[in-house]
């Protein structure tokens, strides 16, 4: 009797899986943590490029050393925030807890106010970073910065 019930449960599960698979096989969603891990790598790459760009702009005289230090300060904030986000992604917390923590990390980082203090040339570098951060916030349902 117990064995029959077990077999019946397995059969029901297979039927449910098969019917759902038929409906969802065309557009499978990317698991949230895979999407977030990919976005974190994209942000890390954007920060690396930004760091090299600002040094080049300083070295060729386009921006001042003070402005270089300002932009580097924001890149450091973003890099450390990215590391905090990574720690969340591999933590044992459930997804709603991780999402809330990730939103808090980025909305308190102060990157949005930073741009107003920079020249247009340096501001463009920060734009690329803010763009990726906004993709991250959109993925977790947070507000754009």
């Amino acid at each position, binding site marked *: 009797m117990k064995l029959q019930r077990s077999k019946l449960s*397995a059969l029901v599960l297979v039927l449910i899986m098969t019917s759902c698979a038929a409906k969802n096989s065309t557009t499978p969603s990317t698991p949230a943590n895979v999407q977030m891990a990919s976005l*974190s790598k994209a942000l*890390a790459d954007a920060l690396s490029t930004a760091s090299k760009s600002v040094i080049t702009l300083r070295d060729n005289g386009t921006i001042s*050393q003070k402005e270089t230090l300002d932009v580097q300060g924001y890149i450091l904030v973003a*890099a450390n925030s990215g*590391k905090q986000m990574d720690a969340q*992604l591999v933590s044992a917390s459930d*997804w*709603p807890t991780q999402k809330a923590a990730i939103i808090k990390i980025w909305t308190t980082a102060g990157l949005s106010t930073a741009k107003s203090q920079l020249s247009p040339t340096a501001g463009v570098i920060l734009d690329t970073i803010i763009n990726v951060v906004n993709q991250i916030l959109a993925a977790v349902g947070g507000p754009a910065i």
Partner: protein
Amino acid sequence: MNPATIALIQLLNVAVPGGILLVKDIIDLFHKYPGLTPDQFLAIVKEVVTKADATYDATIAEILADQAAHKTP
């Protein structure tokens, strides 16, 4: 539900932070990453995050080195 299915769902709950997975979520995972075991799936997520962390660390080191080299006396 047979023990293998229960074990699979438990493993997926570890692999995917999102609490209890729906059957649809499990199907999506296996369609998106066919042939991957839950352990392999988790390993991929961790590998991407580890690479991101290494890039963050390299950028931080680059900036600190540049700032040290351009410190005004």
